[in-house]
Every structure is written in structure tokens, then in C-alpha cells.
């Protein structure tokens, strides 16, 4: 299993290929469009993180101490962001998820392109993913 830090470094390397915000935007849209849609049964209000300009549905399951996330959004860009977060945080242990610092977000230059509300949206997604991890931590003690 690759560590969170290793995956973060790979993403940072991927983004190093792009010089402009335009290229990064297109890349994130591409990732977002590839994200498997969430089954309708999971698109419940309980799973919804309501942002100012888009909504996100996020759920998590655990198998043998490994967490897997699934998510969707009405914004393709936000789906791209989630896909990146899931690449980093899915298939990890609860402990690793809770302790992840996720420095890659700053390093790939994403945060600077986000207005306050959107950065908050990203923060809300990370918080929710970590909350799931905390839940599974307690389940396993």
C-alpha cells in the first residue's frame, strides 16, 4: 500500500507538468468527469455537504481496517477536487487519514485559485472525510 505522502508526491509531480491555471482547470475537470457517479441511494441529505455554489455527497465504507470513500457533486470541478482527495485518502487506515496533513493542496497551487467559499468547501470535504475516519477508529478499538 502506498502511503498518503507518496500519493501526494505523485500528484504534485503530475501538476508540475502544468504551467497555467487553464491547464490545471482542464485537468481537474477531466478527472472530475471520470469519477464514477454515486448511486442514487447514497445521494441523501445525510450524506450531503452543502456548499455555497455546489453540493457534495460523500459516503465511506470500511473493510478490514481500510476505508474507502465514494462521492459525487453537481459541479464537475468539485468532483475533480474530490477525486484528488479520494486518490489520497481512500484505501488508507483510519489513523493515516486522521493524521494526514494534505500539504499537496497548497503545493499544486489549488488553494490560491479558490475564493473563500470554495476553499471552505474543500475544507468541509476534508473535515467530513476525517470525521468518517474518526468514526471507524472508534469502531475498531
Amino acid at each position, binding site marked *: 500500500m502506498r502511503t498518503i505522502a507518496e500519493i501526494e508526491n505523485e500528484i504534485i509531480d503530475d501538476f508540475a507538468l502544468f504551467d*497555467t491555471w*487553464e491547464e490545471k482547470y482542464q485537468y481537474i*475537470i477531466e478527472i472530475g468527469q471520470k469519477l464514477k457517479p454515486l448511486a442514487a441511494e447514497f445521494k441523501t441529505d445525510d450524506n450531503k455537504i452543502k456548499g455555497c*455554489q455546489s*453540493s457534495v455527497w460523500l459516503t465511506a465504507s470500511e473493510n478490514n481496517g481500510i476505508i474507502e470513500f465514494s462521492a459525487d457533486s*453537481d459541479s464537475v*470541478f468539485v468532483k475533480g477536487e474530490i477525486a484528488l482527495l479520494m486518490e489520497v485518502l481512500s484505501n488508507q487506515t483510519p489513523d493515516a487519514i486522521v493524521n494526514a496533513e494534505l500539504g499537496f493542496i497548497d503545493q499544486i497551487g489549488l488553494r490560491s485559485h479558490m475564493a473563500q467559499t470554495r476553499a471552505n468547501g474543500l475544507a468541509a470535504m476534508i473535515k467530513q472525510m476525517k470525521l468518517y475516519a474518526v468514526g471507524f477508529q472508534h469502531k475498531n478499538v
Partner: protein
Amino acid sequence: MELTSVKSTFDVTAIRKDFPVLSEMPYGKPLVYFDNAATSQKPQVVIDALVNYYSHYNANVHRGVHFLSQKASDAFDAVREKVRSFINAATEREIIFVRGTTEGVNLVAATYGRKNIQQGDTILVSAMEHHSNIVPWQMLCEEKGARLNVIPMNEKGELVLDSLEDLLNDNCKFVAVTHTANSLGTINPIKEIIAKAHSKNIPVLVDGAQAVAHDEVDVQDLDCDFFVFSAHKMLGPTGIGAVYGKLSLLEEMPPYHGGGEMIKSVSFKGTTWNEVPYKFEAGTPNIADVIAMGAAIDYWYSFDRAAAHQQEIDLLNYCTSKLADIPSVRIIGTAKNKAAVISFVIDKANAMDVGMFLDTKGIAVRTGQHCAEPVMDWFGIPGTIRASFMFYNTLEEVDYFIEQLKKAIQLLAV
């Protein structure tokens, strides 16, 4: 109608040179600034006024016997007259400086409203208000046990005045309506609403935030009781705006904030208030921005306003017709009488995604709810993409915008 051939006498190329920001190159691309309803750009004369004040005569006003203070006081005081003339108030005593529209509405709610609204009264707003002309009234209603009523609108985003007679019943004690809606562009028949309210002796506040930047405003002709606006939407700096209030009402109103400048005499036994408008202006005012607001008003008189207005109408009509040609676009707000604001949604594409795409191309639009959540709820949409124009925008910019919008649709609406 052959809109591309519209040629006005307005020299947009020359006027653009007055606005330094317009030659910025975000991400190396020429800036196309279509977010004017959020805030307008500033001509060099406004920027110079700020720099000049801080560089050459920064001093507190009305307090110093010294040269700088007198110069600053003179410049500051002159602006009250400029604002008076800009909206044609009867006397400059009717002009109160505030931070902007939001503070202006709050001032009227906290002074006139607190004094006059009682339990069981209603306050009437419209279905297309900006949050800043809803929330202060809700807070007042909460405090007083009063109730908010709403003038409805139709699917074009026009106010429906059929029910106005009923809404202006004996319980109704105040009306607060926007002149021009920032989310839809609708220009409301404000004069008619004021006349109807006055026939029942109900005072009216007009939210002029959008209107002052696009139409010539005459508060005496409108006969409104209060008119509030922000300088930053009309080429001036942020952090300053004004409340116009009829003198007879202002005289009767309690003060807003307590502090220096707003008092005549203070002792520990009690305090007497200063005269109108100073009674409402506690503390050191926003001297620099008041002076720069004066420069913005001077600038409005430096060009042909009618021709500038025509340029905005051309932009509105041209862009509206281009958007109408794109099948997946639906314009939200199709009132007969509209300012140069176009809100729209795209089938199967999220507004923010489209806005971000346009941003990568150097185009600035606003996406989302535009501080008018009830409007979005009415239309059953999460938000819109909004292009809003100022006279310094060009038809070529509209062409580029439409071209890039089509690319966004191709990429995103799949």
C-alpha cells in the same frame, strides 16, 4: 435587428484609458470585466484623489485649526454638496455618509425603524431584494414583533403590483424596495410604488445600489423618503456610500451610533445631539473615501452620460440576442425594463464550473446566488451565471465572451 452595426458616438476606446485595471492581463489574457454589478472599476481620477489626500493633506476633519485639517475639512465638506446634486436632494443636510448600502439600510432600520415600528406592524419588501434589504428588516421585525410582507414577482422577474393595494393595508408601516435588482437586472416602477405607498402615508426606502450606476437619479422626483447607495458600484471607492433622507424625517429620528462628532454637548448627566446629518455620523469619518467619492461624481459629469447609457443598452441587447442563439442557455430575468445585467443558467452545467472556465480565459463574471437567495429559490435554481456591464465594456468583449461560453458548454454540459 442588425445589432453589430450599432455605432454610437460614444468613444469607448478613449474612456477605457481612464480605467487602469482594464489593461490588466489575468493569466496573460486581456481582462474582460463583466462583474460590474458586484463592483465597478475606478477611473484614475478616483485613485489619484485617494493618493493625493494621503500624500498631501491627510488630517482629521473639523478638529484642527491647522492648515492640513482645514484643507481636508474643505475637501470633505464639498462632497456632501456633490452627492446632493448627483441625486438632486433638496439640501445637503439630507445626505448622511455611511459605509455603503448595507450600512445605510441598517441605519434607517435602527433609527427610523426602531422608533416607529411597533408590534403587529408589517414592513413590505419585494421578492427580488438583495439580502442587505431583507435581513436588517427581519432583525427589526424580530425585535419588535412585527412581520415582513413581500411584493410578489412573475416568471419574467417583474414585480406584480396587483396585490399592492392589499399589502399596503393599515398594518403596513414601511416599504423597502430595490430600484434595480442585482440578480435579475429588473428596473422596478419605483415611482408608482412610492406614490401608492404615500397615498396611505407609508414611507418608502429605495435601495439604489444598482440604480445610481446606470440611471440618473432624482430623489425629489421619485419622492422617496430614503435612498441608499454605495460609491463602489458607481466608479467610487469601497467603504463609502450615502443615505438620503427627507429632512423632516431625519430631524425626528434618534441617532445611530454614539461617539464624537454626533454630539452637541456631553456631560455625565446627559448629552445633546448634534444637528442633522452629523447626528448620524459618529466618530472620525472615512475622509479619504468621501473625497474620492467626490472625484467619482465629478468624473460622471466629464462625459456624455446619455451616450454612455446607450452603450450599456447596446451591450445588453447585443449580448441578450447572442445568448438567445445558444439553445442550452436560459436567461433568468427577462423584464421589459432592464439594466445591463444578464443572469442565466445552462442546461446540465454547474454555474461555478462555467464561471471558473471563463476565469481561465480572463473573463470575470459572477456565479451563485448574488446575495439574493429568495430569488434563486423562486426560480428553483441553485444559482446563475451573471454578466453585468458598464459603459466601458465593448461589443468585441461580448463576442469573446460568447465564443468562450460556447467552449465551456462543449466541455461541461455533457
